[in-house]
C-alpha cells in the first residue's frame, strides 16, 4: 500500500522558506505569483494490511512524529484516496 502525507504549516504561522521562494521567483521575473507556502511531502510504502488499521497507524505516525502539531497540520492519502 502506498501512503502520501502532506505536512503543511498551519494558517497564520510564518513561512520564511515560502517567503524566500516567493521573493526569488519575483527576482527571476515570474510575475503574478501571489503567495507561496512550503510544506513537506512523504511517501510511505506499507506492507499490505487492513485499510482501517493502516489509516489508524498513519494518523498516529503523524501525531507522534511526522508533524509537529503545534504549528503543522497533516493530510494523509492511502492508495490515492484521502483519509479523513
Amino acid at each position, binding site marked *: 500500500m502506498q501512503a502520501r502525507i502532506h505536512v503543511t504549516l498551519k494558517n497564520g504561522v510564518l513561512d*520564511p*522558506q515560502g517567503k524566500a521562494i516567493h521573493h526569488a521567483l519575483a527576482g527571476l521575473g515570474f510575475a503574478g505569483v501571489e503567495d507561496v507556502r512550503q510544506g513537506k511531502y512523504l511517501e510511505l510504502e506499507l506492507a499490505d494490511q487492513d485499510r482501517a488499521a493502516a489509516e489508524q497507524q498513519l494518523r498516529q505516525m503523524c501525531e507522534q*512524529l511526522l508533524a*509537529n502539531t503545534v504549528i503543522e497540520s497533516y493530510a494523509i492519502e492511502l492508495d490515492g484516496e484521502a483519509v479523513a
Partner: protein
Amino acid sequence: MTAAIIVFPGSNCDRDTAVALEAASGRAPRLIWHRETALPKVDLIVIPGGFAYGDYLRAGAIAAHSPIMREVVARAHAGVPTLGICNGFQVLTETGLLPGVLTRNASLRFVCRDVHLRVEQTDSVFTCKYRPDQVLRIPVAHMDGNYIADDTTLQELEDHGQIALRYCDADGAATAEANPNGAQRNIAGLFNRRRNVLGLMPHPERAADPHHGGTDGRALFAGLVEMIAA
C-alpha cells in the same frame, strides 16, 4: 554534583559540555547513550548540542522519541534540573517539556557568531550567578533557532518569568538587529513553569575558557554546581 549528558547519534557537543561541567564541578559527568531506558541517580541532566539524527525531519524531532527520553521527561517532571543547549533545546520543545517550536532561522542560513544576551530572570538554578539585566556575550551556532509560539503562550511565558535570556545589543537593548534568527520576542532561552528546565540556543560551554575569547558562560555551570551542592 553528578550530571548526566544524554548522547544521541549525531550529538556533537557532548564532549564540550562535559569539559565545561567537569571544570565547574570537578567531576566528570556520565555520558548516557540514548538507547538506555534507565537513568542513574543524577543531580542534573544535560541534552547537548549537535545534530541528533542529523536533525532530519525536524530539528530534535527524532531524538525526542529516543528510548532514554521517556526517563528524562519523567525526571524533569519530578524536578531534576534539566538543561538543553541548542539541539538540546530543540529536543526539549519536541518532547513538550518546553512550549513552542524552534524553526528555521529567518535568514534561512546557519549562523555561527557571538551574540549578546540579556539575563531576564536570575531566580533559577541556572541563572542564579548572573545579575538581573546583565549582558552576556556567548556564541550561537544553529540552523533552527527561530522560536515560535502562539500569543497566549508568549504572554504566559512573560507573565510567569519563564523567559531566561533574550538576544540584545551590547547595551542590553533587545532590538531586531541583535536577533540572529528571528526568534519571537528575541527569546534565546526559556524555562518551564517550575524553572527546573532550561532550553537555550547559545552555547555557554563555548564561552567557558579564556581561550574561547570570553567566559560569560561559565557562571551558568558554576551556579548549577553551587545550587545543587546547597
